[in-house]
């Protein structure tokens, strides 16, 4: 177990392993995306209340739900950085923060576009949108702390700590915003579908899209992580050999 763990922390090992996995992940991602998008756009029956805007859910829901995973991910990686000083964990914290900001931004944008017709306005202070908005702010905080600290070792630890603090905070914010929201304007949270009984035509494409977005998340993280490894390990022998063999 310990050996496996320390091997996982080795950038070289990760670089080689991920190099072998990446093509398969990319292929799977495109397959899931293609089937999911075609199914969602063409075949899903329209919602009796929301009409064809239900197509928006098939991208909004996967992205929004995965965006909630970023702070826990960063907090776990941050803990590993602080406790075991594992290089790879810090790279995960570093690459996850901007990607998480993208995910959150897209979830916000798609949520508010969906709301144009349903709520009659681009933006309402709905519980979910509000807590996503603050999650976005906190992620931007981690990104800007990283770019402000020049010393990479201090930046690694500072961002790890901020991720842990941020993760606790996001959870508290989530609950307090929900509470605040129910007291101020009850019942405006959007629901996935009002006709759940409709069967597999509704949820199979959703599952496919969730899979596709998860794969996209993995692919993008792995790609940025590999870039970061190349830059940090540029003086090591294996990177020099890799460059020589180009």
């Amino acid at each position, binding site marked *: 177990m310990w050996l496996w763990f320390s091997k996982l922390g080795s950038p070289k090992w990760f670089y080689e392993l991920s190099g072998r996995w990446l093509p398969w992940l990319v292929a799977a991602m495109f397959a899931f995306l293609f089937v999911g998008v075609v199914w969602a756009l063409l075949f899903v029956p329209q919602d009796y209340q929301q009409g064809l805007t239900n197509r928006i859910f098939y991208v909004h829901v996967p992205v929004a739900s995965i965006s909630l995973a970023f702070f826990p991910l960063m907090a776990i990686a941050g803990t590993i950085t602080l406790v075991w000083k594992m290089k790879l964990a810090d790279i995960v914290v570093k690459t996850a923060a901007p990607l998480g900001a993208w995910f959150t931004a897209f979830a916000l944008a*798609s949520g508010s576009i969906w709301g144009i017709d349903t709520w009659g306005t681009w933006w309402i202070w709905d519980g979910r949108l509000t807590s996503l908005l603050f999650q976005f702010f906190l992620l931007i905080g981690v990104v800007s702390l990283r770019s402000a600290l020049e010393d990479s070792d201090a930046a690694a630890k500072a961002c790890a700590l901020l991720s842990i603090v941020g993760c606790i905070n996001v959870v508290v914010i989530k609950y307090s915003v929900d509470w605040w929201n129910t007291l101020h304007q009850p019942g405006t949270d959007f629901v996935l579908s009002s006709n759940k009984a409709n069967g597999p035509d509704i949820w199979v494409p959703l599952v496919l899209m969730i899979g596709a977005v998860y794969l996209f998340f993995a692919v993008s993280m792995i790609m940025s992580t590999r870039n970061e490894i190349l830059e940090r390990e540029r003086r090591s022998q294996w990177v020099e050999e890799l460059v020589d063999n180009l």
Partner: protein
Amino acid sequence: MLNAIQFSSFSEFLNMGGYAFNVWSVYGLFTIFLGANLLVPMFKKKQILKDLKRRRVVNKNARPEINE
């Protein structure tokens, strides 16, 4: 299977039951979102490798005695 398609014509598909703007802008943003986060790291990798290669060549030429 084809008769399960919800639209009878292509223009109807584009129209999205009157929600063309909402649906297509979200899917457009989705494409940008995916594309940016896949292409940017891809180009960055090329850039890094090019950079490392150039530096490697410069180093080799600068200190030939070390590499021999």
